[in-house]
């Protein structure tokens, strides 16, 4: 018997669809699982249930609009599948709302992938690509979320170098903190350009009224050209409470992926290139690989050790 228990019941009523249905039919029974005395229970008698339901629907809409900003391609792809609108709404529930805010988008992405994999019926031939792209955005959301939770650690990771020193290839290199790397079947940014015609802030409102068609998805995913997507989140500037993040995102040839495991903080880019040549890689490949590393170092995704 406490205000805490009333709060638990109130938030559950807002975010638990089944509980609301039960509450409409039999309020006493619906609240039976909460330790409320008669007076505390009576506080819920004042609720106009249809208004509560409307309120809850509006909240879900607003929450989806926010989640869509972190997972734009995932939302666009999902919208092309039959029944997506209702399903996306159902994925916002009590359990999702219990996840810390910083990690909510990643959790939503996981749920979306589960739905696309096991319950939805996307075109069979497109499903693997759709899952890979949703997985990539989910990984990015997870990386951003973990940085938000560990903002003090992030401040220690420092910015990317503004200009590379001449000897940059001779410095030990590693993947930067709060970076993630995933293979995507197509350029994620190109798919976003093709399927998300408005700013991410307005995207859910747009997709809710104008879902992407299967034909649009098919066109966007037509030419499979696997890419290695590397992303690093950093703080834009020091914020005492809510960190604001910026994202450095680089897409390189998927052939780059095996090289990443050599970036262990001891090896130098120069050594990696030499070993590649010794292993028989054609000389003509070296400039392209060097350019790829330069791009990654410039974006702060690969960190050089021993810089002043």
């Amino acid at each position, binding site marked *: 018997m406490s205000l805490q228990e009333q709060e638990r019941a109130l938030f559950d009523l807002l975010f638990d669809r089944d509980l609301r249905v039960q509450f409409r039919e039999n309020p006493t029974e619906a609240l039976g699982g909460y330790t409320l005395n008669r007076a505390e229970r009576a506080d819920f008698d004042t609720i106009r249930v249809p208004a509560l339901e409307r309120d809850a629907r509006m909240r879900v809409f607003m929450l989806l609009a926010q989640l869509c900003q972190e997972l734009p391609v995932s939302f666009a792809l999902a919208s092309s599948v039959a029944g997506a609108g209702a399903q996306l709404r159902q994925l916002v529930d009590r359990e999702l709302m219990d996840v810390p805010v910083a990690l909510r988008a990643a959790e939503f992405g996981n749920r979306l992938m589960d739905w696309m994999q096991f319950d939805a019926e996307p075109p069979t031939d497109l499903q693997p690509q759709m899952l890979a792209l949703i997985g990539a955005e989910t990984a990015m959301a997870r990386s951003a979320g973990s940085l938000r939770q560990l903002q003090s650690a992030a401040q220690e990771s420092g910015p990317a170098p503004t200009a590379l020193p001449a000897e940059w290839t001779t410095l030990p290199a590693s993947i930067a903190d709060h970076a993630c790397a995933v293979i995507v079947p197509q350029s994620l940014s190109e798919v976003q350009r093709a399927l998300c015609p408005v700013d991410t802030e307005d995207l859910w409102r747009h997709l809710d009224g104008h879902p992407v068609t299967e034909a649009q998805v098919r066109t966007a995913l037509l030419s499979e050209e696997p890419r290695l997507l590397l992303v690093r989140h950093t703080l834009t500037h020091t914020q005492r*409470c809510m960190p604001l993040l910026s994202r450095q995102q680089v897409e390189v040839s998927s052939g780059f992926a095996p090289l990443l495991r050599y970036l262990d903080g001891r090896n130098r880019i120069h050594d990696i290139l030499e070993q590649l040549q010794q292993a028989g890689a054609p000389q003509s490949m070296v400039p392209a690989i060097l350019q790829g590393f330069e791009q990654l170092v410039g974006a702060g995704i690969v960190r050089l050790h021993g810089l002043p």
Partner: protein
Amino acid sequence: MKFSELPMLGLGASLSLSAQPDPVALVRAEGGPGFVEYAGLVDPESVLDEVNAIRAAGAPVLFHPSYINFCGTFANASRWLDTTAAHIEAVGSPWFAQDCAYCFRADDPTYSTSLGYFVPPILSHASLETAKDRVREVQDHVQVPVAIEPPPMSFQVGTLPLLAFFGELAEATDCALLFDMGHLVSYEMASGSRIVDQLHYLPRERVIEVHVAGGRLRDTEAGPLYIDAHEAEILADTWAMFEALLPRLPNVRAVCYECEGIAGDAVLATLRRLREAVRTLGGSAELREAMES
């Protein structure tokens, strides 16, 4: 606290700092707002450039965020409160007002968008006692007077009349009140009660700010539902609430038109109508005179 000693800000507008209509252009326009209220991020660095431009154009600002829990058992984090105090000082906000509602849950301080939007307080005695702790928690950090605002409500939980809850909360914590006319309309629809029937609970001299904003009505099986929508027209019910309450509030220092997303010309037209209404209906000579300047 003597609220009558707070500066008279007159008629102003609540605007988004980074979107149309441009606050600086509006402030400079003839008949433009005399102050600008904004809902910004907690960290002051994120708004200082825009705020300084508004102040340089001659208008003071009021910081009106949406991340403080002024009710409920989830305490505000000291880091957020300290930063809020720094924000208020940096922008020179003469008081600090926000809706008295849930913005976040558990140990996860953040903006009310994490819940979709505000969750209204439970109108009960136990909730009222806890709200007093939340208000004092903020007052302990913030150097300017704190004003609490009844939030928009689709539904009511609890049996205390709204003005009984807010009247006692204000008296017990010596804080000020902000009344949004649309929010009061939303309460009337959610509760079936009338605000004018509850005025005897209200320490009227504590109401220092009034908001007027657009809204939409939605029909439900249980009757109409008011939805706060600043980009929409001001509803007749909201005008009626304003006309009924303003003459009874003797200490209003600021009347704010919340108009984010409305074109500049339309904002100026509504400010003209509001100015005329306040000139006629203002509850104090000082407020009415402020409409002349």
